[in-house]
């Protein structure tokens, strides 16, 4: 059951966005996040909105999946809005008893809320259209120049993809061990923080041992299949930029200029 949870919530379908090189998507996501912080103007955010909506449409992922990520941050969002609304000094707009809403406060609150929302949705586009392994491959190829200064890019990427592969397995094992200990009367629910921590030992010790055992087995299997690290390795599906990637990279500066221009021209 637990094995059915996909990490990163990848939504499998065939779209231009899905088929883009993961490096392109990574660069774009970073640039997009950067732009949200740099251009603090409503006009710029309109530009960002146009981009977001267009990309979501092209990705063919249903909108409801995009907002799923928002569920986790609703509380944070509310706190941010409330704090900024009531606690920033400036010209008063509304006053209810002791609580003042200032113009600056409203401005900041709205921007923070928008920024957070767009950040989440933008990142969701990334994770919904790219599998975790595509991401690690993208990072491995993209950061490859770092190999020259002896940063173990390949090793880290390999470790990350193996970790991703085993997360569902270890989750399932945690469930099994919990049940086995519960069958021996273990109680993982009651007690204060210290008691709960102590009660975790029958869960954590077997889990760690199991993880080590798996790592040992896996290392043997990898060696048996000729693994010696990244040197000399080829890839079945090497990452190669396609026409769409080049177009995407070309649009990037256009987008940033548009953001800048909107702010300058419209002013707010």
């Amino acid at each position, binding site marked *: 059951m637990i094995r*059915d949870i996909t990490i990163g919530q990848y939504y499998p379908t065939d779209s231009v966005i899905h088929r883009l090189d993961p490096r392109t998507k990574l660069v774009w996501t970073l640039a997009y996040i950067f732009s949200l912080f740099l251009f603090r103007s409503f006009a710029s955010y309109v530009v960002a909105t146009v981009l977001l909506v267009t990309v979501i449409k092209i990705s063919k992922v249903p909108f409801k999946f995009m907002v799923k990520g928002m569920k986790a941050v609703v509380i944070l969002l509310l706190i941010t809005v409330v704090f900024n609304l009531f606690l920033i000094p400036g010209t008063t707009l509304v006053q209810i008893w002791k609580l003042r809403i200032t113009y600056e406060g409203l401005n900041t609150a709205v921007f923070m809320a928008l920024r957070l929302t767009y950040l989440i949705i933008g990142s969701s586009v990334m994770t919904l259209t790219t599998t975790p392994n595509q991401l690690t491959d993208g990072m491995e190829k993209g950061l490859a120049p770092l190999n020259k200064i002896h940063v173990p890019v390949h090793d880290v990427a390999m470790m990350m993809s193996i970790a991703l592969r085993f997360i569902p397995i270890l989750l399932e094992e945690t469930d099994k061990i919990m049940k086995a200990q519960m*069958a021996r*009367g273990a109680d993982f629910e009651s007690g204060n923080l210290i008691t709960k921590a102590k009660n975790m030992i*029958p869960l954590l010790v077997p889990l760690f041992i199991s993880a080590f055992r798996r790592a040992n087995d896996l290392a043997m299997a990898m060696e048996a299949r000729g693994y010696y690290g990244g040197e000399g390795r080829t890839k079945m599906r090497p990452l190669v930029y396609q026409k769409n990637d080049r177009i995407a990279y070309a649009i990037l500066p256009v987008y940033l200029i548009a953001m800048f221009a909107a702010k300058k021209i419209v002013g707010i």
Partner: protein
Amino acid sequence: MSIKLEHINYIYGEETAYEKHALKDINLEIPDGQFVGIIGHTGSGKSTLIQHLNGLIKATSGVIYYNGENIYAEGYSMKELRSHVGLVFQYPEYQLFEADVLSDVCFGPKNLGLSEEEVKMRSLEALHQVGLKEKYYDKSPFDLSGGQKRRVAIAGILAMHPEVLILDEPTAGLDPKGRDDILDQIAKLHKERGITVILVSHSMEDVAKYVDRIIVMDHGCMKFDGEPKKVFEHYKELESIGLSAPQVTYVMQDLKEKGFDVDVHAITVEEAKQSILQVFGMKVKKNGSEENV
């Protein structure tokens, strides 16, 4: 000490893409002291079923009675139920965690809130029952062999003095010697202590040799329920659901087809031998010498 299941259904992953109706209208009664075997293909629901018996999984609908009490009733202690219904999972050696064998076995009885003396006494008794030599009691469980570790894990449940002992594939991954040892120990426990034993297994030969009753699970339903001989009569149907009868059953069926007047219900080598010898007009006396009929 009986267990009764009425109209048990279990569905998980409701309203997601992975919804599965794992148990479909299970009605079952297991009387005190029975030795039951549950067999079924992977995914048939047998593991899910046994986890219902000690309350680890709660049924979506239906009732379970232990000793006449409804375990889903308000205020019923599942923790207490688990002290009466002991469940040994598959590859139980993966649950060991203490620094030494004895301490690990003590974990279960300790959780029952018993006195230190009682805990130690029960643990030593349980270790003795699974046939583990005393010299291992103060060793780290991780220094033991796979088969030994498994016995420690089983002792961990026995030390809780359950009235019902459920074992999920206790012979998984063991070699023939290890397998025979564990099954013999379990059969001995059943005989000496009179506890109810429920054995989940893939191995028809093992199950046929020891149990009084076989329940066959197929895609969440109970397909057959009865004495081993009766159940293995349906060997063709068992095959179609991914199981098989013991090898000798097939031999007997084949012989019958060829005109031999043999007992097609033979499920062990000994029974098959006797039946075949009879056809040839021979009989073997208990001390092994022959005698013509």
